[in-house]
């Protein structure tokens, strides 16, 4: 049974908030999530009990920490339903997305090829492809979004054609929070011979990921958005694809040998992509984070986050001065503006009430052409949020005015 008050005890920051008189209401979970004690402990344990480098069997501690590191790979693999040698550790989702754009783009993209994406993509997923496109004289096309910013199977079908070689798409957009029908889209893309690269930064923490069932080709995500440390992310790739592409980084650990003439023999995937000392304690923390998520369970996570969202939307849609951009999305992301108030001013007003949300264009700058607003307020929920916290932001948004925002500076 999911009990939010018990769960909140697992998070030091929430526990502290509960004990303090000043409210601390964290509703910016799409930017990053808070960390449970078990993740913190896993990181600290590395420093106090291991503290050595990996991939060296020469002494016991190193062997143990390498083993622990590789066990994390297994944990990640089973978490997303992949094989263990399909899991590459990177510095984060952005690093994963750059790696695959470089590796796949360099090898397979030709002049006049098309990369298909959407206007709601995050900068980290689309910008690397801008570069590939300009280097290879390929072009970027966008699946047209529906009026409320959604990607539908219909729209996608229309946008697909034989020149499309790569589809780059977020499973859940960080701006509008719609869940795209990834399995269906992948089937369509494959029928045209294109591969599908999924940006899972916002989905992996919130819904069960099934890379094999969906048959997607690559998946990128970050630990820090799933209750784990910053500095580590994952690139999943089908083994044959990983095997066929070049690594982005070269260096110690990823090569088996090289000689003075410049001949390099790379290791097999996933190791060939992991040059240099990785973020060891962060990887170990990621293991604890996944175990934490699994202890809660996606059934509970999806249910709780959906309930909170519905509660929030039902209240906010009563307010005439609040424009909701995605009332029908199903994930925990609620995007809005207080009419006439720049989002940054509104966010800072909410901050004065102890409420943390994000203002801006959320690194998906091209979406703004669709929403017709330069920026928005984004509320993003996690299972550890409460109805009371929703009430607090509902109250604050009920009474917000431009004057009140400005008065904060006096």
């Amino acid at each position, binding site marked *: 049974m999911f009990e939010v008050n018990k769960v909140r005890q697992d998070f030091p920051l929430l526990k502290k908030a509960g004990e303090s008189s000043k409210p601390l209401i964290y509703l910016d979970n799409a930017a990053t999530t808070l960390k449970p004690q078990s993740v913190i402990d896993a990181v600290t344990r590395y420093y106090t009990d291991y503290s050595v480098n990996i991939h060296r069997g020469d002494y016991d501690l190193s062997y143990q920490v390498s083993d622990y590191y590789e066990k994390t790979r297994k944990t990640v693999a089973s978490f997303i339903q992949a094989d263990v040698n399909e899991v590459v550790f990177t510095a984060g989702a952005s690093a994963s997305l750059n790696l695959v754009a470089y590796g796949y783009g360099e090898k397979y993209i030709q002049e006049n090829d098309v990369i298909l994406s959407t206007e709601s993509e995050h900068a980290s997923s689309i910008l690397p492809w801008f570069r590939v496109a300009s280097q290879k004289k390929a072009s970027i096309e966008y699946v047209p979004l529906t009026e409320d910013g959604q990607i539908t199977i219909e729209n996608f079908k229309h946008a697909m054609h034989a020149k499309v070689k790569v589809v780059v798409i977020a499973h859940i957009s960080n701006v509008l929070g719609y869940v795209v029908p990834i399995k269906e889209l992948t089937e369509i893309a494959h029928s045209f011979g294109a591969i599908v690269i999924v940006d899972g930064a916002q989905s992996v923490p919130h819904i069960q990921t099934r890379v094999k069932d969906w048959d997607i080709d690559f998946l990128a995500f970050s630990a820090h958005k799933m209750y784990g440390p910053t500095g580590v992310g994952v690139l999943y790739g089908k083994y044959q694809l990983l095997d066929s592409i070049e690594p982005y980084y070269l260096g110690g650990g990823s090569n088996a040998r090289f000689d003075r003439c410049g001949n390099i023999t790379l290791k097999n995937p996933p190791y060939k992509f992991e040059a240099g000392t990785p973020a060891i304690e962060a990887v170990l923390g990621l293991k604890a984070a996944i175990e934490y998520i699994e202890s809660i369970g996606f059934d509970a996570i999806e249910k709780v986050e959906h309930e909170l969202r519905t509660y929030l939307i039902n209240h906010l849609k009563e307010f005439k001065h609040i424009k909701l951009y995605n009332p029908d999305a199903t994930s925990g992301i609620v995007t809005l503006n207080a009419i006439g108030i720049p989002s940054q*001013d509104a966010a800072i007003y909410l901050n004065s009430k102890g409420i943390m949300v994000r203002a801006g264009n959320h690194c998906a700058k091209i979406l703004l052409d669709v929403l017709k607003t330069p920026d928005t307020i984004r509320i993003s929920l996690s299972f550890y949020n409460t109805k009371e916290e929703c009430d607090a932001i509902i109250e604050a948004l009920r009474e917000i005015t431009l*004057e009140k925002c400005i008065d904060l500076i006096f």
Partner: protein
Amino acid sequence: MSDLMKDPLILRQIIMDHYEYPRNHHLTEDEHYHKAHMASESCIDDITVMAKIEDNIVKDVCFDGVACTISTASTSIMTELLIGKTVEEAEAIVKEYYKMIELLPFDEEVLQEAIAFHQVGKQANRIKCATIGFKAIEECIKEHKHE
């Protein structure tokens, strides 16, 4: 400190007015203008300021972009303050403004409506907004001097 500065209602009115009706709010293709594009890290404020400086006089300043109330209003006020001043006077005004932002003693006379921001320095997360236009004009002046 003057009474004016103690009355938040009046100060707020100044800011609201400059936010809703920003002065010199346009850009130009004129090649005699210096141009500074300021995009703050928070992804929101994204302002371009242009200035024509000739014969050591700030002949014109204008701006455009997407910004919060504080950035828009402070930049709008800045344009009004600086147009017509000599480069030295302009620099002195900018300097005085920064003093105010840093909560140091400053010359109210020189800053005129800009005193609406005299307390903004207490809120660290708004200092960037309140100074973005001033930073931009500084760049324009710097560019002018390098010519």
